[in-house]
């Protein structure tokens, strides 16, 4: 095992919290939307993009980061937020549209901002990439060795912002790690029908930066590859592109009928569940007993339950507050 026990257990525990949260959200999201699905109805209205199965990318990369490193993420970002250390109660409250949320209910699930750990996400494909470049630029100008990580999907790699951001970060030798999370689908369109080349990591060459591919949905493999990219950035050697293959267990959005997907596919993917695999490895190493595992699982569930309860119990914002916070005081 290329990592020590403490690290491996930490990665395992974090993935469990994420999986628990996403699976809880599957249930919570459907409250009030039945018998006929109404996207604007129920406890959590609006769109919902969940990342069950994609835990390794988030956890393997963020394990190397400090609170003062910036992370930008896409529309499907709960796993990145949790792995970065975003306050889970305030994040849940924001998803529920409550006054106690990260954005006082003004942002919602796709627009989560936690300045305490420099996390932000956006619903516009690839839009977080230039922002990460800017955070890295500031770190360099301010002589800090903090870095920025930009998470985006394989679909985003065809957006202009991807190319502009890689070029600019390479040109100015900025401390950014660009992480392409390849879950095979951009909504319904598989990578092979959208991208002219087979490996996004190969695009790094066009910008003169290293491109690394991690071909399995394995948190240890991601952890190792990310460690190199993060070190490179932190010591001032510039950006890298990390392409990680992962598996999206759920639809693009909750309610997605997934007509474009073979119904057996998710069953097949779940046979190589990265959390189950890591658990087996930990037990084989003698680093985890069934009793300890039960406790970790119980604690993960309790963390999620507490956050959801906080969100449920929190008040909704007063309607007139919609007019506030467009601008801050002049300064």
């Amino acid at each position, binding site marked *: 095992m290329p990592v020590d026990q403490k690290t491996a257990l930490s990665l395992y525990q974090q993935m469990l919290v994420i999986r628990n949260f996403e699976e809880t959200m599957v249930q919570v999201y459907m409250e009030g939307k039945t018998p006929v699905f109404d996207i604007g109805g129920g406890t959590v209205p609006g769109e919902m993009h969940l990342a069950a199965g994609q835990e390794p990318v988030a956890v393997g990369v963020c394990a190397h980061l400090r609170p003062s490193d*910036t992370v*930008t993420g896409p529309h499907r970002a709960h796993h990145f937020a949790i792995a970065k250390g975003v306050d889970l109660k305030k994040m849940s409250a924001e998803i529920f549209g409550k006054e106690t*949320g*990260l*954005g*006082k*209910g*003004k*942002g*919602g699930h796709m*627009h989560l*901002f936690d*300045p305490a750990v*420099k996390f*932000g996400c*956006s619903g*516009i494909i690839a*839009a977080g*990439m*230039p*922002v*990460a*470049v*800017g*955070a*890295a*630029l*500031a*770190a360099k*100008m*301010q002589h800090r060795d903090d870095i*920025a990580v930009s998470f985006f999907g394989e679909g985003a790699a065809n957006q*202009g*912002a991807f190319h*502009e*951001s890689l*070029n*600019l970060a390479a*040109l100015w030798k900025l401390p950014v790690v660009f992480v392409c999370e390849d879950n095979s689908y951009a909504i319904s369109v598989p990578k092979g029908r959208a991208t002219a080349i087979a490996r996004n990591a190969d695009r790094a060459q066009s910008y003169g930066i290293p491109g690394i591919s991690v071909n399995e949905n394995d948190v240890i493999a991601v952890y190792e590859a990310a460690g190199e990219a993060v070190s490179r950035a932190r010591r001032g050697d510039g950006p890298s592109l990390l392409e990680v293959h992962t598996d999206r267990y759920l639809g693009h959005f909750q309610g997605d009928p997934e007509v474009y997907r073979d119904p057996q596919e998710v069953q097949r993917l779940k046979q190589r569940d990265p959390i189950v695999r890591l658990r087996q490895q930990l037990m084989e190493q003698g680093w985890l007993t069934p009793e300890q595992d039960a406790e970790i699982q119980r604690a993960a569930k309790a963390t999620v339950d507490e956050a959801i309860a906080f969100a449920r119990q929190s008040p909704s914002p007063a309607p007139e507050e919609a007019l*506030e*916070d*467009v*601008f*801050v*005081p*002049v*300064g």
Partner: protein
Amino acid sequence: MAVHIREITTARAISEAIAQEMARDPRVFVMGEDIARYGGIFGATQGLLDQFGEDRVRDTPISETAFIGAAIGAALEGMRPIVELMFVDFFGVCMDQIYNHLAKITYMSGGNLHLPVTLITAFGAGYNDAAQHSQSLYGVFAHLPGMKVVVPATPYDAKGLMIQAIRDDNPVIYFMHKGVMGLGWMTMLEAAAGPVPEEPYTIPFGVADVKREGTDITIVTIGMMVHRALEAAQTLAGEGISAEVLDLRTLVPLDRDAIVQSVRKTHRLLVVDEDYRSFGMSGEIIATVAESALDYLDAPARRIAVPDVPIPYSRPLEQFVLPNAAKIATAARELVQGA
């Protein structure tokens, strides 16, 4: 304290404002296309590279999405970026970062995040740069919530508003009319040079300026059209018509009180707008008066704006679509004397 005033161009006033703020605050830096070595295509950043060096005055690749987005990321990390979008007409290639991110992140974060970014951009027609390089698209930006919109018409206003913009903790889109910059390669405009104090000063946003007092008609306008309106007012004065020229200076925030106050005095409203006629600034001004001062109007409100057509290249065509002093004077005459 003595105030040293000298005649300088609008471009010089802007670059001086930026230089003074960069000297005062190490967090301020500038990036954009041709803003460093060239000093900005429209002269807005002349002299900055020599004074502050490459780290703080950066030429960028032609990557507006990347560098405007980078301004956002840098601002979130405590910097105060000034970023140039060379021609406002180019906003199409980067508008997502501007209106969906720069303008909305503060709100979506419940006010927890500040974005002290100043986006400077050039606009305006009259020198045959055709449809894609002649627009005055402040109406587009003013329509979308989350960004302040500043449009100075004179060197004095340009410096005060620029310093204010840089010090504001919110996103400001600062529009520079190419014709008032005082560039050697553009048609000379006398008002492109004017008295400007050497010392730094600010002009608050949301305060319109009566550039010429009058009693018979209110002409509300902004940017280069302020000068066309003043020219018309001069002509009208010779005919016994007293026109008040109200320079809005900022569209967001908009000084609605000043507009209403002026119309209550003159009872006639003419809006002059270099942007396209429909669904923009001119409609907003007239709606404001219709909502708050309808009873004070003795004649229907009128507007002179660019018609809803792309701006044509050929000189007679371009001159036909643009507002000018003669058109303003004719409209004012009709309103005052009855058509």
